[in-house]
């Protein structure tokens, strides 16, 4: 199974071609902010190098979030259009699951973090690929408490990966919770890893493939509080005219 995978969820761009578990090619651009300009050319160059066409692929995979809203949409839009036009299955992979899968150590709880500012994080905790704390938007303090409780109860080792690790480290230390930091390379999503996770993920209708923002927009939250009205599905607000 040939898989093309993409992550534009963070400020690192990652693109990979997998033959099942095996990573045939992976390109990573660190601290590259201009995903919109780079993503398509990087994909095109990789395909040329491997003498493949998009239509030769068996599956597309993309980090669907959490992450930078604009970044997520670039990757998800690109992959959703490929899949829709070429009729090739597509899967969305949690950015946090992809980060956690960078650390394959057994009996280690991997806390994947994406800094969401103001001591909040998009975070999820994984044990050998299994989600133990669901992906969500958490205050750091709550994460420390939950993770510490899990580690104490089950005797897990703890590894932190992702971004905003300095502040997180201070908080875990202050709580007296022992931890390790992942290797530098494990702090950003690797498309090759996403490709591996994609093998067993369930394909979705490309039209339904959407970023998993994990947060409503501030405008909607304010509107909800000010008017007391309930949130409606987004499809209620868009009409064809």
């Amino acid at each position, binding site marked *: 199974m040939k898989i093309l995978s993409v992550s534009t969820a963070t400020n690192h761009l990652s693109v990979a071609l997998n033959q099942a578990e095996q990573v045939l090619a992976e390109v990573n651009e660190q601290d590259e902010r201009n995903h919109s300009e780079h993503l398509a*050319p990087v994909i*095109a160059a990789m395909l040329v190098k491997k003498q493949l066409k*998009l239509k030769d692929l068996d599956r597309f995979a993309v980090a669907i979030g959490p992450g930078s809203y604009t970044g997520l949409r670039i990757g998800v839009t690109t*992959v959703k*259009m490929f899949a829709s*036009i070429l009729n090739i299955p597509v899967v969305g992979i949690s950015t946090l699951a992809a980060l956690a899968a960078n650390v394959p150590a057994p009996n280690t709880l991997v806390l994947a973090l994406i800094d969401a500012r103001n001591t909040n994080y998009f975070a999820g905790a994984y044990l050998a690929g299994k989600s133990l704390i669901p992906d969500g938007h958490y205050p750091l303090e709550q994460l420390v408490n939950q993770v510490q409780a899990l580690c104490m109860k089950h005797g897990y080792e703890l590894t932190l990966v992702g971004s905003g690790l300095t502040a997180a480290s201070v908080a875990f230390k202050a709580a007296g919770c022992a931890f390790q930091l992942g290797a530098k390379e494990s702090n950003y999503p690797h498309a090759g890893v996403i490709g591996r996770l994609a093998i067993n993920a369930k394909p979705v209708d490309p039209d339904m493939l959407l970023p998993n923002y994990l947060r409503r927009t501030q405008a909607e939250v304010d509107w909800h509080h000010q008017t007391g009205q309930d949130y409606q599905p*987004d*499809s209620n607000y868009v009409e*064809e*005219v």
Partner: protein
Amino acid sequence: MTEKKAIRILAYESSCDETSTSVVKNGTEIESLIVATQIKSHQRFGGVVPEVASRHHIEVVSQITKEALAEANCSWHDIDAIAVTYGPGLVGALLIGVSAAKAAAMATDLPLIGVDHIMGHIMAAQLTAPITYPALALQVSGGHTEIVLLHDPVHFEIIGDTRDDAAGEAYDKIGRVLGVNYPAGKTIDAWAHQGHDTFHFPRAMMHEDDYDFSFSGLKSAFINTCHHADQIHETLNKLDLAASFQAAVIDVLSDKTMRAIKAYQPNTFIMGGGVAANLGLRECMANEIAKLPAKEQPRVILPPLKLCGDNAAMIGAAAYNLYQAGQFADLTLNADPSLELPYAESMLN
């Protein structure tokens, strides 16, 4: 004799609060046009919220691609190029169209064309009647109020611009004061037809020797009039307020535009953008031009109301001209939120 092969362009538009796709044949014929509007969503907030707009765009973009092809009875094999608005507009919103169009071009091996949204608005005229050049366009929309000289189908030059608010923006702002939800232009236009110009608001920059506009003075005069009435608990006639505002806007727009028409003697006069749907403005411009000596009258093209607001058909029309001129984009195409048509030399000082 073999017929010349038709050129079909699939176009995307997502610069603001409409996601739209269209198949346009030979730059003149709309074979399909899908417009998914988010107005209902943004009305919750009284105006367009960029992050909400971007989220809605991505929800529909693949679906409306299929719909545009189906409605045109086309498959990808019938399409010759893919076009997309890459600016100006909201960056996050533009990025959905740009990413989708690039992905579509890659998946289909079709050429890609990046289109300036304002060039698109003006080229809605090409879907209505043939344009002969040089042409002159009054571009009036939510973010732009410009007089544009069209040397040929792809060389445009701004000869007049607003120094502050755009006309549509002014409509939306005074609409808010009158309690009209965004976008207010259509309702104010309807009210204006039922009222009278009793307030005589100032006509800014009517007598200066350039083709620039200003609406902030008018807007302030309008708002001050309303606030003052509020303070003394007087109720003003909304229909007359709307009529007075619209009369001032139309006077300013038509005065400068007529002056430009007389100076440049274009073969065609075009109106484009959301405010070009304004019935008062359409009527006024048609009347003023009819008053010119017969041989000085440009042909007038006012696109149907449906093509004045944001839509992908106008992008397909402009893209056809770029296709003929060999102006293609590559896969590095990016959104450019502050893209501008070139300014005439006279404007650069």
